[in-house]
């Protein structure tokens, strides 16, 4: 009786939980710390646009991207922290007696990562809008790259949830976050570039493929997290589809953009 509670997530409950968890993620100290990083990175860039000649997104916009990368990291840790709440607060027993089971909770948490992503999108649009008033309009590739930052927030948020589900230990995700900065597999740090917007995606087509790769990977982590508590046919089919998208996108990127370098360092 203590096994899977219901065959699949309850859609109404997922949406309601997403509202609650999304709000909690936005006021989570980790996310607020991420916002501070965004503020610092963006302030450096915007200050440059006001005080220096010849400022460009390509040469100076990296501080903005790093700020949002930190925000994504903090979202990952925050989502992991939220997903470990039942274990931490000992509410598993009383929640087991409720009709909506773990799959619903995980679905709610995964959907909740769209809230930080939405905030990311709004902030990026505001920064890009301000920069454009300083004569720094974005190219089509740059627009996709900035959009990808939103996808990375969802991706790392979903990763944080998936790790909480499969490796329910509060130290795992913070260690992963640190490792992402410290460990550089291979000769260059390009392994991590595989999921960042800086992976030499010089054409719109490649940038869109990379965006598909990021979004697909986020969905794969999401399906993986849900599969921990329910392995129904729709979940398995979704897993196969998103794995296919990720595989195709990765293959295209490896073949066209940076053979042998981007994804495996």
């Amino acid at each position: 009786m203590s096994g899977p509670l219901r065959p699949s997530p309850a859609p109404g409950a997922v949406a309601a939980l997403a509202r609650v968890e999304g709000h909690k993620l936005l006021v989570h100290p980790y996310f607020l710390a991420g916002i501070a990083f965004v503020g610092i990175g963006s302030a450096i860039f915007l200050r440059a646009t006001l005080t220096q000649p010849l400022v460009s997104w390509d040469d100076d916009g990296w501080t903005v991207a790093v700020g949002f990368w930190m925000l994504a990291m903090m979202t990952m840790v925050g989502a992991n922290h939220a997903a470990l709440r039942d274990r931490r607060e000992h509410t598993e027993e009383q929640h087991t007696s409720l009709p909506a089971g773990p799959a619903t909770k995980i679905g709610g948490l995964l959907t909740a990562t769209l809230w930080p992503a939405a905030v990311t999108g709004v902030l990026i649009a505001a920064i890009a809008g301000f920069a454009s008033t300083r004569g720094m309009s974005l190219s089509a590739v740059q627009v996709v790259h900035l959009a990808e930052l939103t996808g990375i927030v969802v991706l790392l948020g979903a990763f944080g949830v998936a790790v909480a589900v499969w490796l329910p230990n509060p130290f795992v995700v913070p260690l992963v976050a640190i490792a992402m900065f410290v460990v550089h597999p291979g000769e260059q740090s390009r392994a991590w570039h595989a999921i960042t917007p800086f992976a030499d995606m010089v054409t719109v087509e490649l940038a869109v493929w990379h965006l598909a790769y990021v979004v697909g990977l986020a969905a794969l982590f999401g399906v993986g997290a849900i599969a921990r508590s329910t392995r129904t046919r729709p979940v398995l089919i979704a897993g196969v589809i998103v794995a296919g998208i990720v595989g195709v996108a990765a293959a295209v990127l490896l073949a066209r953009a940076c053979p042998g370098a981007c994804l495996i360092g």
Partner: protein
Amino acid sequence: MEPWPIELTEVSKRYGGVRALDHVTLSAGPGITGLLGPNGAGKTTLMRIVATVLAPDEGSVRLLGHDLARAHERVEVRRRLGYMPQEPGFYQQFTAFEFVDYVAILKEMKDRSARHDAVRRALGAVGLEDVAHRKVKGLSGGMRRRLALAQALLGDADVLMLDEPTAGLDPEQRLRFRELVSQLPHRPAVLLSTHQTEDITAVCERVIVLAGGRIRFDGSPAALAETATGRVWVEQDRNEQAVLSWRMSDGRHRHIGDPPAGATIAEANIDDAYLLMAGVTAQTQGAAA
């Protein structure tokens, strides 16, 4: 004929070599059934099985006519079940309202406005409406206990499982709890596990005494008290023959067991009966061991 809301047939549960429940059969209808027993009697195991948290090793459990061995029937039951565990957990960073609302969502209360009304009603029923927007970590132990009760009361559950709900409550809060549980308008089937015989006397129509994983008594509180009639006596000094004895405030000793000839027999109450039953069970088990 309507099925009993709670029906257990030959239910057994083991933890390693320890038999927590030993072929327990019971039925409980609407109204409050008290579950008394010493620590380790199997009360919490029984509560967890009926609350659908734990599966029995043997036997069958039916709630509201549904067989708990079937997954989809368990989900049906859970929609109509309220459970307050012995050691409830809380989301410390949530407010009291948010915490109960979270449970309401997991109870699949879909309409947001109706759900919030139900949450407010549950918090009001346990007297927490004034601290609804205070974080759980800032609530006292008694308030948290009432918060756990509020989440169990959500949605007018048809079966209510309350595992030691008055532990840690002050006398006034206990009185409020009794008033609340005894006046639930829709008259659910309530299984109330407790160490407090006063709670049983005050609100239960029926009491089950569990010891060593078996049912030792099943009847009304008055009938339980009657089992000790003629087996309680008062003497100035302690009597070593008694099953249990204790010194009272007036200096005399109250004894339970088999009274000696000429002893001053006292009126038995539910405490005496319970202690006698638990004491005899312990002695029997000790002798058997």
